[in-house]
């Protein structure tokens, strides 16, 4: 009898410790969630690809497609030294949300995260990370491709290229979120 009391006392200790451990685990996972839950971000900080993936990954999705845009060492015959990115951050975040909504109209079960860097970005470093999670890979790839095409069309972000011998602002598309032809072009590229 005494032995069995002893065992049950130890068991209750073990169970108390287990409940402490599970509380700690809960706290850790909640903190991780807090760190990684930003779907859309514009920041001077280096991009954390794992965090972008973690913000969209979920048990229902068997595929996460990522796109990482990096600074190239040449452009239009110039030797690029670095890029300085400028953004109208509040509008960029809204634009990212809109792009994700547009993608979900086409690929309804897809979850998209977009993090874009601002400030000076060295050759080889990442300027943008996109993650698209979906139950199946075709949708994940399509949505990620669509997102980068739309970012180039309508995100209020600019590259200031510093190259050997000078600097130049890169000016691409006139941003018009209502331009249906541009949107269809992005869909066509995503589905090609």
């Amino acid at each position, binding site marked *: 009898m005494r032995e069995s009391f002893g065992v049950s006392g130890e068991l209750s200790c073990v169970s108390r410790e287990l409940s402490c451990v599970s509380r700690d685990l809960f706290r850790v996972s909640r903190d991780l969630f807090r760190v990684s839950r930003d779907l859309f971000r514009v920041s001077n900080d280096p991009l954390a690809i794992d965090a972008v993936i973690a913000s969209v990954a979920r048990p229902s999705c068997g595929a996460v497609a990522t796109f990482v845009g990096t600074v190239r060492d040449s452009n239009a015959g110039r030797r690029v030294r670095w890029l300085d990115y400028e953004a109208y951050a509040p509008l960029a975040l809204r634009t990212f949300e809109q792009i994700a909504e547009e993608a979900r109209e086409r690929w309804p079960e897809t979850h998209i995260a977009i993090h874009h860097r601002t400030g000076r970005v060295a050759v080889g470093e990442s300027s943008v990370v996109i993650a698209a999670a979906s139950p199946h890979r075709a949708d994940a790839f399509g949505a990620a491709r669509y997102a980068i095409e739309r970012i180039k069309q309508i*995100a209020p972000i600019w590259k200031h290229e510093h190259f050997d011998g000078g600097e130049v602002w890169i000016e691409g598309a006139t941003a018009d979120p209502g331009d249906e032809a541009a949107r269809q072009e992005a869909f066509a590229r995503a589905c090609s």
Partner: protein
Amino acid sequence: MFVTVRLFARLREIADAGELPLELPDGATVRDAWQALAARTREIEPYAASVSCAINADYSKMNASLKDGDEVAFLPPVSGG
């Protein structure tokens, strides 16, 4: 009324200001704000055909009306990614 104009990238450099106050008559549109700006800084005029605009960090049209205290942004062609 007064609005705050935000300028970015090359436009910001040409105007030598990322943010400036602008006085406009009541009922003025975004286009009126652009023209008032271009009257002050002629060098931005070539952007008239390619510029985009936003009111309070939301994309807008040039014929949208402004109200006192609005933030109106002019965006040269974008190049993110």
